[in-house]
Structures are given as C-alpha cells and as structure tokens.
C-alpha cells in the first residue's frame, strides 16, 4: 500500500510542477502558446521580458499591447499602450520597462498581448497576464540579458 501511495505521489508531484510552471505565473513567469513572459521588479517599476520557444516569432506590426487590468493609476504612463515595429518580427528577447508612479508600490495585474506567429504557419493573438504582487519577492536582476 505504501509503495502504491509513493508511486502515485511520484506521478502527481511532477505533474503538478509542470502544470504550475506552464499555466501559472510563479515569480512573474508565464508561457502561453510558445510565448514566454518574465516579469521582474526594478527600483522604479517592473521589467517585462518577452521571448518565445519552439520557433515562434512575435509579429512586429501587430506589436505588444500593454494593459493595466487593475490599478492603472499606479503606473507612470498611460496604459494601455502598444509598442510596434515596422520589421516583420521583433528581435527577441524583447524588453519593456514599466515605471511606477512616484513611490507607489500598489500591486496590480498587467496584461501583455502579442501576435505570436507559430512554426506551423499561423499567427494568433496571445495574452499573458501577471499579477505584480506575485513578483514582489522575485529577483531584482534584469531578466532580458539574452
């Protein structure tokens, strides 16, 4: 019986870790439809680092739309805002800095929307949302060194 329970635990724990890592946002890390978002805190706000896996690309003309899903007044710029380039695709990793309004540390939910062009030959809109409260204790190092 103990062996069976141990086996079940061995199956369940890695499964839980995988689903937590893929769908969740531990320390501001999310992966959706081959788009990877890493959000980390900086002295005056947050830094988002967008990259991809599996050969996906981010459409330049589609851009990256940044939206404050809550507490929009906490940011030192008008949101939503869209960053776009004329080139077919963004050069990755793509770093976006968001400054907080003077001294504010109010947590909020921020969404990044991109046009993700998949290796199968299609481009789809992808939304990644992160709760900034979750990254309060995350690494302060810049995540976009690539």
């Amino acid at each position: 019986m103990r062996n069976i329970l141990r086996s079940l635990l061995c199956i369940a724990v890695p499964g839980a870790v995988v689903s937590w890592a893929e769908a969740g946002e531990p320390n501001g890390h999310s992966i959706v439809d081959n788009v990877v978002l890493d959000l980390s805190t900086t002295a005056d706000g947050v830094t988002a680092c967008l990259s991809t896996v599996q050969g996906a690309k981010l459409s330049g003309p589609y851009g990256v739309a940044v939206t404050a899903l809550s507490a929009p007044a906490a940011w030192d710029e008008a949101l939503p805002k869209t960053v776009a380039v004329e080139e077919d695709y963004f050069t990755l990793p793509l770093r976006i800095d968001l400054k907080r309004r003077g001294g504010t540390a109010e947590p909020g939910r921020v969404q990044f929307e991109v046009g993700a062009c998949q290796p199968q030959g299609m481009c789809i809109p992808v939304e990644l949302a992160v709760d900034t409260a979750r990254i309060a204790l995350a690494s302060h190092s810049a995540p976009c060194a690539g």
Partner: protein
Amino acid sequence: MKANRRELLIGFGAAMLTGGLSRLAEAAAPGSWVLYISAADCRVGRTWEYDHRAAFVQGLQKNGIGFRTVTVSSLRDPREDAAWPADLKWIRDSYPNMKGTPWFFLISGRTIQIAANSTDMWRTRLAPMAA
C-alpha cells in the same frame, strides 16, 4: 501467376493514389472555390502570398476551382465584420471561434469541404488541388 511483393506494393500504392485523387476530386467538385483569409499584420500570410499564391491560384484555375480573398485589418479579429462581403458571412458564422490568420476554406455550393488554419495545413490539404 504469383504477384511478388514489389508488385503488390505498387498495386497498393496505385490504389491509394487513385483513392486519394478521387477524394480530392470529390472535395473539389465543379464550381468549388477556395477562400483565403489574411490580415494586414500577419507576416505568415504575407510570406505565403509572396511565395505561393500566384502558382496556387493558377493551378486552381487550371482545375476549374476559383479563388477569393478576404483581408481583415488585424489578425486580432479575423471575423471583422466590415471586411467580410455579405455573401461570405455565412462562412465566417460557421466558425465562431475563428482565431488568428491565415485561414483557407474549400467551398462547394453552401458547404465548407475543407478548413485549414495554417500554411502547414494548406500545404497538406489544399495545395494538392492546384497540382
């Protein structure tokens, strides 16, 4: 008279080919046409247009298959109402969860025979019709 293994394989291959072609012919009945949905900000679609569109349309015409295009403003909304001509909206309405671009449809009468939402699917399912 004994058929050897090679002859059997050739026969099997021929039967598969004949079956495949007849299925394609059935799918692309006279009066069929292909609808292509693209978006101004979809570089995958733009690349397909540059690399394959002319030859594909020419091949379709040769086989009596038409070709139409709907271009939406952004891949964000391939169902953009203003971009769809009234006579094609029934196709859009058949796919309420249409997401991203490009899309390819093979239409016969008022029936969608094939729907493909990537250039990979186009290559395997629609490109043979222009061969």
